[in-house]
């Protein structure tokens, strides 16, 4: 018996991707942009916050929780709700707007350009470390650890299968199928 593996491919139909992607930004923008994660053009349709702030948050999301096997769209989705006035209060959006300004000030002081234009991840991480104690960073990180990792579509990438009760649990699906331990 060999262990039952988890198919790491993200199981999502184009239809559902378009549907959920639409909450982040118009799907056409997302799919057509092909731009980098820090691109403001991906957030041209942002309503509550400037495109620059949303682009900054998106790049900050990847720099905070970098997983090279995860595509940009999932980082965009994880921060999209900050632009949603129904999901976010005015006070929260103010924290974001002021935080982005602070991040850019730090980036300009260190590298002479805005955060989204700093090319190396390691350089951007030093900027984040500088603002780590701020309410802005704390709020974004605390939110992101849920909004990013709670995307079910990502779970197979990490080898996590999630809900099992509807399949009768893992009783007949590999709960004890480990095959590499030394025989005692």
């Amino acid at each position, binding site marked *: 018996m060999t*262990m039952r*593996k*988890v198919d790491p491919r993200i199981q999502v139909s184009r239809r559902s991707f378009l549907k959920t992607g639409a909450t982040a930004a118009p799907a056409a923008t997302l799919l057509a942009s092909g731009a980098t994660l820090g691109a403001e053009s991906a957030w041209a349709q942002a309503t509550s916050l400037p495109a620059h702030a949303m682009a900054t948050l998106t790049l900050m999301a990847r*720099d*905070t*929780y*970098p*997983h090279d*096997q995860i595509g940009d769209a999932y980082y965009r989705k994880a921060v999209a709700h900050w632009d949603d006035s129904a999901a976010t209060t005015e006070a929260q959006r103010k924290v974001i707007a002021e935080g982005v300004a602070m991040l850019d000030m730090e980036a300009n002081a260190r590298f002479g350009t805005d955060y989204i234009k700093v090319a190396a991840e390691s350089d951007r*991480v030093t900027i*984040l470390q500088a603002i780590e104690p701020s309410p802005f960073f704390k709020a974004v*990180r605390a939110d992101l*650890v*849920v909004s*990013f*990792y*709670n995307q079910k579509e990502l*779970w197979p990438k*990490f*080898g*996590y*299968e*999630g*809900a*099992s*009760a*509807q399949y*009768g*649990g*893992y*009783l007949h*699906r*590999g*709960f*004890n*199928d*480990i095959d*590499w*331990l*030394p025989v*005692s």
Partner: protein
Amino acid sequence: MTNAAKFSQSDDSVFVIVGSGAGGGTLGNELAQKGVKVVMLEAGPRYTIPDFMNDEWPSFSQLAWTDARTTSGTWRVAKDFPNLPSWIVKAVGGTSIHWAGASLRFRDWEFKTKTTYGDIQGASLLDWPITLEELAPYYANAENRMGVNGTNGIPHLPGNNNFKVMQAGAQKLGYKTVFTGNMAINSQPRDGRGSCEQIGFCFQGCKSGAKWSTLYTEIPKGEATGNLEVRPLSQVIHIEHNEQGKVTGVVYADAKGVMQRQKARAIAIAGNSIESPRLLLNSASAKYPDGLANSSGQVGRNYMRHTTGSVYASFERPVHMYRGTTMAGIIRDESENDPRRGFVGGYEMETISLGLPFAAAFFDPGAWGRGFTSKLDDYSNTAGMWIVGEDMPQETNRVTLDPKVKDKFGMAVASVHFDDHPNDIAMRNHGFKQGAAVYQAVGATRVAEVPPYPSTHNLGTNRMSANPRDGVVNKYGQTHDIKNLFVSDGSQFTTGAGVNPTLTIVALAVRQGDNIAGMMTRREI
């Protein structure tokens, strides 16, 4: 529920129980079986098994007690989760919905820690006013009613992958007592409930009903007698008393937030070790200015949460730790009292697993960047264990009423202060070292020490004592100060022992039910 009773609020012959978890739910059934009329008030809603969700965050929102609390002290929880000192349930069934099922008896010396350990500086150790011998028949009763495997001829559960990794490492290290535990999880159909399907979401409410919870065992059995009425969404705000000092009823907020009064012949509180002292303190009156049952000043003190921590290890090949029961097995070799290790008391090593969303939140709270995310990249190849050991009671570790923060009913919220005792730190570090050694023995490529989660084992804030000046309740959980007021949850614990507390809470509740029935027959209450 068809036979469930409905009692009048003005009926002063009813026994009121506040809380419906392992302690309150069990006591309610015991009393109902003996013909006592019981009204059980539960702050949370009533769910059924199909309502449970195999999905960590939505389930947390559904079940957890997330009403405001505040924290202070040097424990890391106060920094990482300042408003979430504990992870317990607000629903009918209480934390017996969330618990993992581990059901171990205390050892005889764990009832006598002051005698056994001697004076430990800074620790308020005290011997329990009861012994293992006295509790043994009630442990047997609890094991039978809960269906604890490894007792009553019930087979042990099969081990999952996470257990097999821990077991292989433990054997290489020379540990002897390594098995799939004494779990209150059916390994075969029993008591009208099915057997474990290895679903893996024990913390989110067992969707097969294989794991014992008062929600679908004690409570419906009690209701079937016609003597038990459960009122969900009924949060008790304060307890009332008469001029003689005896308690006469409770005021509670109903589902609409309207204040209601239920008269009572006697009252037992079982709201877990944070809410129970909160309620006693919040019931202060002219006669009892420091709160009910608090002439000793001990209400809220000696808050214990077990010395905990987790060890997660990455391997070259897959483990899929989330498949199967969350607490799938145990190493007991470190559970003896061996002060040569540099600390008194013992600890267990029990497998634990978190799904990806909770792993992200709890592996290293607040951490970010590649050092952290690389651990999650290893998720499928990760095995995990939880260390749970005895912590030292300290008078300054305590639950008080927050002077500023109020809940939606205007009731002062609980504030939880906790500092680790040096003995706790020494024990945790030993557990981290041994846990790492277990995994390294079978080829772990990286081992991570994970700090304590918000407390699931909340104990000791209304401690049991022989002498009224040392504690809040006597050996029957009856308050020293007020004859018809009882405590029926883990807050009674004099000391915490090095084992998961639920079995002992249930055994104490069964014993208390016997004694309360006797007191009522003798007209003592």
